[in-house]
C-alpha cells in the first residue's frame, strides 16, 4: 500500500478542506482510529522490532548488514531480483501498452469485456495461477511439447528464471494495465489528429505527440510492476530454480533453514530501503514527465 501512495498511481482527486469544526475533528479522529491502531499494531510495531533485532542480535552493531555486502551471495541474489523485476516491468509494459491503448479507442461494450479479461487473473488465487504455470512448463507439458514440436527447442522451462519471469509478468499484468489505461484515457486524441492535419504521418504523430504524453503513465505502470516484483515469493519458489533464488526466498531460507532471524531481518530492511528508493526514483521521473505534460493544462 505504501508503494501505491508513493507512486501516485491513479491520482486521487484533490480533497477540499471543508470548514472544520471541533465536532468534525472528533469525528475525523474516530474515523481514523481503527486504521491507525491496526497499522501501528500490525505494521509499525513489527517493523520497528525487525529493525531492532537486525542491529542487536546476536550482538549490537551493523554486522548483519555488513555481512550482506561481504558474503558475495546476497548482492548476487539482489542483482538477480532487480533484473527479474526489470524484465517483468518491461514485459508487462510491452503487453499492457497496446492493450490499454486498445481500451481507450474501442466501444464501451468491448472495453467492459477487455476489463473483465484483465481482472479475471486478478480474482484467481495465486496458487492456482502458479500451479497452472507449473503444469504448462513441466517436462512433457504443453509449452515444452510445443517448443519441441515447432521450434525444435528442448528446453523445459520449469525450474528456470525465464519461467519465473513469464509467470510473474502474467500475475502482475493487471497492475500495469489498469493504471496505464487510466493515464492513457486522459490523453486528448484530437492532438494526434491535429499532428496529422499539420503534416505528420500517423507514425510520427504517434511518436511525437502521443508517446510523450503517455510517458508519465508508462513510468508509473512500469514502476508499480517493478516494485511489486521485488517481493515475489511463491512464483520463484514454485517455478524457479533453487540455484537461482530471488531475495524473498533468501529471506525465507534464512528464517526456516538457518534460524538466522537477525540476518533475515537485515535482508528485509535492505530490500525495503531499495524498494522505497526505487519508488522515489520512479516518482521523480514520472513527476518530471507529468510536469512537462501538466505545464500545459
Amino acid at each position, binding site marked *: 500500500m505504501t508503494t501505491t501512495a508513493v507512486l501516485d498511481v491513479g491520482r486521487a482527486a484533490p480533497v477540499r478542506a471543508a470548514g472544520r469544526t471541533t465536532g468534525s475533528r472528533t469525528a475525523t479522529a474516530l474515523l481514523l482510529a481503527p486504521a491507525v491502531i491496526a497499522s501501528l499494531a500490525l505494521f509499525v510495531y513489527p517493523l520497528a522490532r525487525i529493525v531492532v533485532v537486525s542491529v542487536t542480535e546476536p550482538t549490537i552493531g551493523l554486522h548483519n548488514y555488513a555481512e550482506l555486502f561481504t558474503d558475495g551471495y546476497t548482492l548476487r541474489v539482489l542483482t538477480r531480483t532487480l533484473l527479474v523485476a526489470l524484465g517483468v516491468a518491461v514485459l508487462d509494459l510491452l503487453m499492457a501498452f497496446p492493450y490499454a491503448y486498445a481500451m481507450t479507442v474501442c466501444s464501451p461494450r468491448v472495453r467492459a469485456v477487455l476489463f473483465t479479461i484483465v481482472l479475471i487473473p486478478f480474482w484467481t488465487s495465486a496458487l492456482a495461477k502458479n500451479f497452472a504455470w507449473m503444469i504448462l512448463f513441466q517436462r512433457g507439458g504443453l509449452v515444452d511439447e510445443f517448443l519441441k514440436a515447432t521450434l525444435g527447442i528442448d528446453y523445459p522451462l520449469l525450474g528456470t528464471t525465464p519461467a519465473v519471469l513469464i509467470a510473474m509478468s502474467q500475475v502482475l499484468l493487471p497492475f500495469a494495465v489498469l493504471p496505464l489505461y487510466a493515464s492513457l484515457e486522459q490523453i*486528448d486524441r*484530437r*492532438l494526434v*489528429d*491535429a*499532428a*496529422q*492535419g*499539420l*503534416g*505528420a*504521418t*500517423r507514425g*510520427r*504523430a504517434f511518436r*511525437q*505527440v502521443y508517446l*510523450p*504524453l503517455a510517458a508519465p503513465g508508462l513510468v508509473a505502470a512500469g514502476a508499480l510492476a517493478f516494485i511489486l516484483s521485488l517481493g515475489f515469493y511463491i512464483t520463484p519458489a514454485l517455478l524457479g530454480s533453487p540455484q537461482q533464488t530471488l531475495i524473498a526466498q533468501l529471506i525465507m531460507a534464512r528464517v526456516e533453514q538457518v534460524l538466522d532471524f537477525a540476518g533475515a531481518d537485515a535482508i528485509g530492511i535492505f530490500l525495503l530501503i531499495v524498494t522505497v528508493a526505487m519508488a522515489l526514483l520512479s516518482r521523480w521521473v514520472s513527476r518530471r514527465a507529468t510536469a*512537462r*505534460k*501538466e*505545464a*500545459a*493544462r
Partner: protein
Amino acid sequence: MNARAGRLEIRELVKHYGGDGPAAVAGIDLTIDPGEFITLLGPSGSGKTTTLNMIAGFVPPTSGSILLGGTDLTGLQPHKRGFGMVFQNYALFPHMSVFDNVAYPLRQRGKSKAEIRKLVLDIVERFGLAGLERRRPAQLSGGQQQRVALARALVFSPPVLLLDEPLGALDRKLRAQLQLELKKLHQEVGLTFVFVTHDQDEAMYLSDRIAVFDEGRIDGMGRPAELYDDPGTLFVANFLGEANTFAGRFADPRTYAWNDEKWRTGEGDHPAEAVLVVRPERTRVFAPGEVPPGWNSVGAIVTDVSRLGPTSRIDLAFPDGRAGAAVLPSTDAVQVRVGDDVRAAWDLPSQAFVTP
C-alpha cells in the same frame, strides 16, 4: 499566399456511419471560391463537423468527392492534403513550447533549421506573440492560445484554412474580440476559410457565405443578409435568428389565409406550400384599428415587455397560442402593457414565404 489557392469543390458527399441510422452527411454539394470565408452553420448533429472532418481527411466519406483546384483529394491521408487547421479547443501540443508548436508543420515538411526559425519568428511576431516562444500552451491566456493555433495553422502557407468551432470555449467578450481578429486576418491573408460553428451571430458576422446544415443536408446557402431576409426554408428562418411564423395556405395566388386572417402576398412567385415568416424587428405593434393601410396584421396579446438596452422586446401570443415577438428600437416609445390586445403588423417587403 494566394498563388496556390484553388477552388474547393465538394461533390455529392455522403457519410454513413453504418447501422440503420440516417446518414450523418446525406449528400453535400458545395463550391468554395478562393479567398472566400464560408461558414458551415448548424445545430449539433447536423453534419457540419463531419463534413469538415471529411474535407480535412480525418473521416473517410462513404461516397462523393472533394477537389482542390481540380485535383481529387478524396482518398488522401490528412497529412498529404496540406490544409491548415484550427481545432476546437485549439489542440495545441501541451508538451511543446509555443515555438515548437508553430514549428511543427514546418518540421514535418523537412524545412531547414534556419528557414523554420525565420518563418516561426516572423509569424509569432505578426500574431503578437513575440517573447512567448518558450512558454507552454497552458501558460497562455485563451486569446494567446488561439493566436498560437492560428499561427501554427498558417505558418506553412496552406491554400485553405479549416476552423472547427475555434471560439466555442471562450467567454462572450473574448469571443467578440477574437471574431474581429479573425475577420481582419481573413482580409489580410486572403485565404479560403472554411469555418464551422453553431453560433448564428458568429456566422453572420464573419462569413462571406453561410451554408446552413440540417440533418446532413445543406438547407440554405447564401450571403448572410440574403439568407436572413429570404431564408427559403422554415428551418433556416428559425435557426438564423428569430421568426414569427404562420403556417397557413394560399386562398388564391395573391391571398394567404391563416386562422381568420387574410393577408396580401405581394408580387413574385411563392412556393405552393409555404409558411409566412416575419422577423421580430420588422414586426410592429399597434392598437386595434391603427394599423397603417396596406400592412398585414394579426391579433395578439402582449405577454411580456422588456427593455434590452438599445432595443425593446414585446413578447406576444398569437390566436393559435404560439409565441412571437416584436423587437423595436428603445427610442420608439411603445405604450403597451402586459395583457393588452394589440395588432402585430408588418408591411409587404417584411414578409417572406418559406417551405415548411
